[in-house]
């Protein structure tokens, strides 16, 4: 009897930390919940019941209005085009760099790696004005190509650093055997190294895509016109114009969250793998 009741209180006590943690998580996720429930409310409903009440019905007017005014379809297209291009190009560039630095021990590779890491860490504003000026000079200012070019190089700096360290432990026997069979460097890269490093490359691809999607500073200075804006830019620029319209602002927040949330659901495993493998920020 005594033992039994001790056990049941023990079992209850066991749950208390879990419940506290769940409450903490709920508070952490509150911004997501609040933005969602208020984006689908009508304005009178918000005025009457405030931000905490659950919506009585799903009303998409605010979302539709904001979508139209921020030209969100256009922004989604721009962001997708830029992010996909950067992810593909930066993965290729990282692979080429890492092939010569990680597989072939090119002279001065330690210094080159430090250099690549630094290029990734460098504050963008220390490159911003010359890049802005050159882009204007080359007539690629206010086109997606300027942003794609710059972000490809910045992302590949990190990719080169990570991939080179992965490649430095690449099994030499496989490469030696291929060379014996008469493979050249091009064969090594495409037939052996690339297929075997696809898991790492896919992690890089996902991160490059999301980083580029989330990028704010470079699109802000290189893509001024409405038709070329990316999603974060379109939302930030339109934010000020809806100072009074409460539900439109939460609609804009929700439209910003949704694509990232979808990426998160799709790529959750890849993301966790990547973060823990390379300390990716």
């Amino acid at each position, binding site marked *: 009897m005594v033992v039994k009741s001790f056990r049941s209180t023990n079992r209850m006590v066991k749950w208390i930390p879990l419940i506290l943690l769940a409450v903490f998580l709920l508070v952490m996720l509150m*911004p997501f919940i609040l933005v969602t429930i208020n984006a689908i409310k009508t304005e009178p409903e918000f005025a009457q019941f*405030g931000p*905490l009440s659950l919506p009585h019905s799903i009303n998409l007017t605010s979302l539709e209005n904001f979508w139209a005014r921020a030209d969100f379809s256009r922004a989604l297209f721009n962001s997708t085009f830029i992010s996909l291009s950067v992810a593909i190009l930066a993965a290729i560039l990282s692979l080429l760099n890492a092939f010569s630095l990680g597989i072939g021990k090119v002279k001065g590779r330690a210094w080159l790696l430090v250099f690549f890491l630094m290029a990734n860490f460098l504050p963008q504003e220390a490159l911003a*004005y010359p890049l802005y000026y050159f882009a204007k000079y080359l007539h690629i200012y206010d086109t997606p190509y300027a942003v794609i070019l710059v972000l490809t190089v910045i992302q590949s700096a990190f990719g080169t650093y990570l991939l080179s360290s992965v490649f430095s432990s690449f099994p030499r026997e496989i490469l030696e055997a291929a060379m014996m069979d008469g493979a050249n460097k091009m064969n090594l890269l495409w037939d052996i190294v690339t297929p075997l490093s696809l898991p790492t490359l896919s992690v890089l691809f996902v991160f490059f895509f999301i980083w580029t*999607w989330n990028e704010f500073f470079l699109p802000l200075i290189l893509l001024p016109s409405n038709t070329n804006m990316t999603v974060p830019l379109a939302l930030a620029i339109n*934010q000020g114009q809806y100072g009074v319209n409460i539900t439109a602002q*939460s609609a804009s927040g929700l439209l910003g969250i949704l694509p990232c949330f979808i990426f998160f659901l799709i790529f959750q495993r890849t993301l966790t793998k990547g973060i823990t493998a390379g300390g990716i920020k």
Partner: protein
Amino acid sequence: MKQKTSSLDKGYVVFLIPGIIAFLVIIIIPFLTNIGISFTKWGGVRPPVWIGLSNYQRLIGDSVFWLSFKNNLILLLAMTVIPTILGLLLATFLFDYISNNFGQGVSSFFRAGFYLPQILPSAVIGIVWAWILQPDWGVVNFVLKGIGLSSLAHDWLGDPSTALFAVMFVLVWFQIGYPIVIFMAALQRVDPELLEAASIDGASWFQKFWYITIHLIQPEILVVVLTTTIYTLKIFGQVYVLTRGGPGNATSVPSYYAYKQFFETQQVGYGSTVSLAMAIIIILLTVLFINIQSRRENAESA
């Protein structure tokens, strides 16, 4: 056959050519140009005028720059110090307690939940929190009024005395998931037998945490501290959307201050000086980081 192994190590330079050219054009030349501009007075249109070290003299005496730099250091609390400590505690709790009592699935669920803010663009974080902290109808003030604490309701981002704290609060919210994910992976390396042995010897939970766990996951702590520090020194989007550095310069940071010089007041020369100063600090931190890491790797392999 004659050149099998010797050729394995040679002939790779050609693959580096696109990378080198791209880095030259996008990173090196702009960076060097930026250094050059920092010695000039330039509005961006007419030719720049060489003024030697004047911009640097101005930087040393510029109270707004130093205020921005001080703000940036205070933000380190929100981006590095608090998330690292809180992340360590939460990761240990998830790993030791939640995983053991409720299974891995539950602790993975919590990890994913805490990580969620990390996936948002900085601009979206700004939009969401500006909406929550809005003085008239924002949720925070709505709740305060609702529970009878109207006197505490406040223009959080608009009052110079609270703006920086409000920004810091948002940043902690954003940042906490990153150390949790890294530390939970690191904790898998900690040998449970070691902790058990320590328990048998009468070590308290805190002693085990301090002397075993922290000690063993030092490399990850270092990675978190340095990456978040560098990220903080580069912070721009959240400040741009939340406060534009205001009210006054209460939440200004160097990257935003440089942006203002470039694109708002057209003082390109001085903006270059500000951005160069930040670049040098970040380069020094990176060198320090690489040094510590290679020393550690050497110590491990020895």
